[in-house]
Structures are given as C-alpha cells and as structure tokens.
C-alpha cells in the first residue's frame, strides 16, 4: 500500500510542495531529465551511424555498391511502414504539427522509430542528416515523459522543446544552437517560461555528449583574418546561398510530388530513390551519407577540386538529397544543408578568385562556413539558428560579422520567394501552423460548441403573426429560428428588422403566418466548422450572428459579440503563461 502511495506521489510531481511554489522548478527538473534522455538518443544514432559506415565502408568501391543506399532506404521504409506503422515524414514538421495542434502530444513509438530508420538510410549511403530524426526522437521523449507525469498542455510543449534542444545540443555538441533552434523553429515563443527549462535541457544534452564522446567540436577551429573586402563579398554569397536554398526547397518538393504519382509500393520507391543516389555517389562519393568529412576538408582548405567540379557537387548533392528524402528514405535536411552550403561557399570563393585574382581573399574555409550559415538560414528561415550553429560547431567568433550578414540576407531573400520555410510550408498551406498568441491559434483553441447561444425562442411556420408578437415581447433577441413542428427540421429565421412593416400593423396579426415572412435563404454554420472560416463568412455577408445547425436541426446562434468575449478570455489565458 505504501509502495502504491509512493508511486502516486512520483506520478504527480506538480503536487509536491516544492514545485507548487513555482512550476518553473518542476519544468527545469524534468527538463534536465528529458535533455539527458534525448542526448542519449542522439548519441545512440551517432554511434549507430559510425558502426554502419565502418561495416559498409569496405564495400563502397565495388561496382554493385550503388544498390546499398537502395537497400538501406527500402529497409528503412519497410521498418517505418510495416513494423512501426508510423507514416513517413521528415520528423520536424510532425513535431511542429503536434505543438501547434495538440499541445505537443506525440506517440511513444516516435521516440525511437526515426533513430533506427534514419540509421538504415544514412548509414547505407543515403543523402540525409541525422538531426531531424533526433529532433523527433527527443521531442517524443519529452512528450511521453510529460504524459507520464500528467503534465498539462503548456508544460508538455515546454518539455517537447526540452527534448528537441537536448537532442540538437548533443548531436552537434552545441547547447546554444539547441536552445535557439528550439525556440526559433519549434516553439516560436520567446518567453522566460520556455527558455529556462529548454536552456537547462540543452546543457544536459550537451553534457551527456561530452561525457560519452568527449568535448569535441564538429569541425576544426581555424583563425580567419577577415577584411572589409571579404565582408562585402559576403553579400554576393548571401544571394547565391539564398538561390541554392530555394533550388533545394523546390527540388525536394518536386521529388515528393513526382514520387507520389508513381504507383508502386512505398519501399520499392525508396529503393529506386536510394539506387539513384547510389548511382550518383558511385561517381561523386562526396554526396553520400551525411557528408561531414567533405565539410571538414573544405573548412581546412584541403578540398582541391576546381570551380566546375564543386558546382557539379552542389547540384549532385541537391539531387541526391531529393531522391533520398523525396522517394521515401528517412532522415533530415540539416546535414545536407551544411554540405551543400559549404560546397556553395567554396564555389563562390573559387568564382571571385577567378574574377579578381589580384585580391587576397580570406581562406576558402571561411566561405565554406558562411555558405553553411546561408543555407541553414535560408532553408529553415531561422537566421539565429544558422549563426549560432556555425559559431558553435567551428568554435570561433571571428566570422561573426559576415555570418550575421549572410544569415540575415539569405533568410530575407528566401522569404521573398518562399514565404514559409521548408519545414513549415505544408503546415502553412493546410492551416496547421499555429504559433502561440496569434489570431489563428486563439481561434483554433475555441470551438463552435463553446460559443453557441441557446437562449433563442424557437417558433413554427404555422404560427400566426399575432401569436409571434406575444412571444417576441418576452424575448430580448432579434432572431427567431423557425422549425417544422413534427420533424424539428430547421426551416429558416425570422429577423425583426425584416418584418418590422408587419409588426406595427395589427391587421396582419391574424392573416399572416410566419411561413410567409421568414427568411429561408439563411446562411448557417455547423458544429465542426472552423471559427476562422465562420468569421470570414460573417464578414463577407456583413452578418453579426449566424444560426448553428446540425443534422438539419437548430442548435443555437453564434455571434461576433460572444466570439470576441471568448476570444479575449482565451488570449488572456495564452498570454498569462
């Protein structure tokens, strides 16, 4: 009995006296746990990828090696569709969707499924990154821990953020990038309530990474002496990275759409996509896998290929990523963005060197870094993430000035052509991207059934005007729904403004029936209709209220006044957090 009582206490930590004092303490404590768990998940994927590369590395030079990414992608797809039954996707849009629509509720299976599937895809040579899978995994860990401790929606969303931050911090050994990415991309709300636990989770995620694989930065830190001329040249790089970002975004979408029109089993499509990647990789091995070894060479300035070859690599990596992800492989676009970005930076450096050979430009490694920031900022439309990630994974602040310029300009240009980022585009198009405290979010959190006003007096079509006048005197409303007496079917509406001419002439009282004067062309709304669509209809028809009808029966009225009242209450609830 004592054991069960003890379990009950553990299950509901929000009831502890210590946490009742301030629930931020609760979020910080559980956030640390979530950050550590998601950090471990990220490391597990990292180790899995290393093992896969080592295992398959011996066969890469063989002629049949091109089918390896195909087999990996097919196994990954079969695993997700047949074993885990999850439904494919990148991961990050699913996390955004869950945060926007369902207070961060995520399935338990999501906490491990993408780790395994992306390990199969990337480890076999598919062109994708492990970051989106670890983001999904970390977010699902946070969500499920929140469910275990019976936390509310707001706390659950914060823990989803903690999971994301811990995972990103661990995989890049970059705690600030983890925090910034989570707030900028996933949560979209810069409030202390979110930032503090997410920062703590980020620290714990990074710490787990440092404990288990040492405090290493992803790429070697080099000193760059940047002149004003280099900074000016970066403006051109920002334009180029923006264009490449748009090209990558569109290529990915085109590839998705193309694959959707091919009527083959999903694992066959993944296998075809993988084999195409393998084919490209056979001639250009730099496009295979996550591709961090190429970035290392470019940052160090040891990547010796010429301008045209690097331009070819940019296109090849874009194609390989589109075939991998668009055709059913599992993984994210973070790592491909970094690789394409560094190729773009290098390409740009070679180009300006060719144009102005007399100028002493900064080392090409610096442009590779800036290119990475430009691509990340452009694709994600998250400039802060781009800046902090590059600063942390290269371990130096020397490039911060051009970094800010490239990130800011690339984001702005991409936004002009693609108003929503790659992660958010589908959600925005379907109306599922609901940031906290926005009009769409407040309306989405309300439902028609909450707003229905039921104090209407229902009348029948056979009623005489005289009888109606007596009823009308008892009501404070201008609207009277008309129903069929037997079937209770909604027939129309009497609006006092429309029948005023009859009301003041007693001659009509015994001769006019409501059927003759009711409005039968009434625009109605249903219980499941979206409030934003209802408001649009009200605005279009210059209406202040509309009848709610379900199964041809009158339910009540919905009015702008009540909507405004509830809207305000909901907004207060959301802003008081």
């Amino acid at each position, binding site marked *: 009995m004592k054991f*069960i009582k003890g*379990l009950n206490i553990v299950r509901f930590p929000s009831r502890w006296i210590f946490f009742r004092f301030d629930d931020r303490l609760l979020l910080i404590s559980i956030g640390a746990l979530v950050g550590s768990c998601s950090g471990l998940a990220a490391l597990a994927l990292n180790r899995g990828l290393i093992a896969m590369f080592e295992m398959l590395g011996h066969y890469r030079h063989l002629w049949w090696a091109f089918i390896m990414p195909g087999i990996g992608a097919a196994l990954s797809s079969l695993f997700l569709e047949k074993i885990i*039954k999850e*439904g*494919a996707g990148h991961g990050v849009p699913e996390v955004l969707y869950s945060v926007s629509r*369902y207070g961060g509720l*995520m*399935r338990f299976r999501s906490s491990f499924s993408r780790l395994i599937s992306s390990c199969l895809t990337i480890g076999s040579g598919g062109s994708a990154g492990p970051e989106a899978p670890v983001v999904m995994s970390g977010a699902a860990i946070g969500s499920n821990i929140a469910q275990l401790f019976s936390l509310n929606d707001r706390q659950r969303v914060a823990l989803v953020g903690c999971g994301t931050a811990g995972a990103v911090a661990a995989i890049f050994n970059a705690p600030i990038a983890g925090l910034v990415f989570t707030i900028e991309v996933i949560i979209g709300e810069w409030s202390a309530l979110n930032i503090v636990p997410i920062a703590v989770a980020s620290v714990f995620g990074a710490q787990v990474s440092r404990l288990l694989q040492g405090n290493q930065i992803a790429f070697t830190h080099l000193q760059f002496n940047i002149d004003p001329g280099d900074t000016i040249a970066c403006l051109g790089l920002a334009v180029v990275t923006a264009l490449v970002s748009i090209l990558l975004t569109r290529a990915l979408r085109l590839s998705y759409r193309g694959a959707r029109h091919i009527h083959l089993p999903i694992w066959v499509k993944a296998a075809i996509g993988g084999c195409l990647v393998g084919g490209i990789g056979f001639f250009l091995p730099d496009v295979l896998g996550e591709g961090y070894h190429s970035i290392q060479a470019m940052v160090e300035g040891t990547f010796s290929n010429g301008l045209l070859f690097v331009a070819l690599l940019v296109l090849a990596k874009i194609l390989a990523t589109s075939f991998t992800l668009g055709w059913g492989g599992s993984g994210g676009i973070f790592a491909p963005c970094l690789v394409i970005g560094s190729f773009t930076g290098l390409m740009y450096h070679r180009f300006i060197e060719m144009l102005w050979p007399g100028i002493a430009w900064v080392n090409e490694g610096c442009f590779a870094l800036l290119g990475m920031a430009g691509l990340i900022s452009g694709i994600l439309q998250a400039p802060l993430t781009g800046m902090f990630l590059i600063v942390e994974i290269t371990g130096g602040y020397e490039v911060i000035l051009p970094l800010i310029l490239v990130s800011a300009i690339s984001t702005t240009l991409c936004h002009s052509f693609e108003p929503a980022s790659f992660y958010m585009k589908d959600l925005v198009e*379907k109306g599922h991207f609901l940031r906290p405290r926005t009009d769409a979010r407040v309306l989405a959190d309300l439902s028609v059934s909450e707003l*229905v006003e039921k104090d209407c007096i229902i009348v029948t079509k056979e009623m005489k005007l005289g009888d109606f006048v007596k009823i009308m005197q008892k009501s404070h409303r201008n609207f009277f729904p008309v129903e069929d007496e037997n079937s209770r079917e909604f027939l129309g509406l009497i609006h006092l403004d429309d029948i005023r001419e009859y009301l003041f002439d007693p001659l009509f009282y015994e001769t006019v029936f409501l059927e003759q004067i009711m409005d039968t062309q009434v625009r109605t709304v249903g219980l499941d209709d979206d409030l934003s669509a209802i408001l649009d209809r009200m605005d279009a028809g210059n209406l202040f209220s509309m009848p709610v009808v379900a199964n041809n029966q009158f339910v009540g009225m919905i009015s702008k006044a009540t909507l405004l009242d509830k809207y305000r209450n909901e907004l207060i609830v959301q802003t008081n957090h």
Partner: protein
Amino acid sequence: METRLLHIFRNTPIGREVLLQSMYFCKSIGVHPVIYIPEFIKFLMYFEKDVVQIDLDDSYLIAPETASAHAVEIVRSQGLPEPNFIEPKNFTASTLPDIPVNFDFMCCPRTISDLSSKIGLGYIGPRVRRIVHSAKFPVLIVGTIYKPWKSIGVMFGGSANAINAFRLGVRISRLSGLPMNVYTQLGKHSPDYYKDIIQKNDLTWDMEQYVRNWEFFDSGEFSVNLYKVPHDALVVIGAYGHGVIKEMLFGSTMEKVQSILPNNLLIVGPKYQAAM
C-alpha cells in the same frame, strides 16, 4: 446539444452486424450516428492527455466503393435519419488522418487492429483498451451477431468508476425505457456498505426509480454467478481504476465479465464524466 456516437465502419458481414448493433443503441437512446469509413490503414485519436494510433485490420478497407451506400442502408433500416460521415480535416502524416474525439459514445468490436478471427470471449484488443482508458466517452463493445437487448445490467462494485457506470446505466434506462438490474458480488462487505455508497452519491432516488432488481451475489464465485445476468441485457461496467497501478490494469471484474459474458458491453473508462 445532440449526442453523437462514433462508429468505425467495416464493409464486411461482420461490420454489418456491428453497425446494426450500434444503430440499435443509437435508436434506443436517441443518439445521432457519425460514421468513419477508413481510407487508410491507420488513424490517430488525440485525447486530452494521450494520443492513440489505431492500426486497423486490413478488412476495414474492403470495397470502399460500396461502403458508404451499405452504411446508409443499415442506418435507414433502423429507422434513423441520414448519418454523418467523417471526412478527416487534419493529418499528422499524409497517410495518417486524425479523427475527432468529441463524441458522446463510440462503438467498436472487441478488437479493431487484429484479424476479425481473433474476436471472441476473453479478448479485448490493446487499442480498444487504450481508447477506453483515454476517452471521455464510454465505449460500446458489441458482439459479432446483431442481438437487440431487453434490459440494462450494471455491474456495481462500489468504486468511483462503478458509480459512473451506474449513472450511465440510469441514463440509458431512462432514455430507452428498458428495465435496469444491478449486480454486486459481496466480498468482505455487506450489502449495507454498497447501499451507503449509493446514498452518499445521492443516487438513492435513481436506484428506487429505475432499478428493477439489485442482486447481491453473497456466495459462490463471481464467474459462476454471472450466469444470472440475462443473455439479452446490455451490460454497463467500469474499467480501469484511479491510481498508478489501477490506471494500468483493465480491472479484475472487468476481465472476468468480458471473458465470461457474451453480452454487449458498455464500458466506462476512468476519464468518463457521467451526465444524468
């Protein structure tokens, strides 16, 4: 506000029987049916604090071109108005629709994820259990042959969920006009203990008004005593309890009832809030 029942339709003979039973329930207590004809093999139900993925048995996707017409035909055969069909608006992934959960009842067979050959006494599928655990609505679990019921039987063991089950039984008895019986297996407590619980919950009037017979099983095994429950009764029972351990278990009484009674079951979960 109208009360609504969610039904996941399977366009097979067994699906027909389940829908017939479901529509009989709707007709007897005036509930409007809302039918979902699955287009994909899986869907999600987002409850307040849990998300449940339902991986359907393949037979749910059989003959989609006739599914809607068959469903309407069955609904009309019970004299009910045209049903509403769910068209999913939200998708977690392109092949993973989210089904709304704002219903008053849901009807399903004993298992919806496993092959229909598994449907039988003593087995309630894991997804159905998850729904019962997380939903605010009670779940009507029906047999494989349509059989109208003639009375309501409530299993009352004195717990909070049993109180909810009793309240629901009263509501159904009141709306359908069918007589109601209550069954209690006496363990270490006397009948007065249970009567006291009813009194403390202000249910004495309902007990007198709607309950035809309150049967106390004072001797013998509960499983043996269940023989006294009429074959044509709708059995209302609570599942899962409150507390860490009880929230994980379906409940020993519930397990016995579902293993022994072939009757249609209306199961009240821990999140259900009774309306009289």
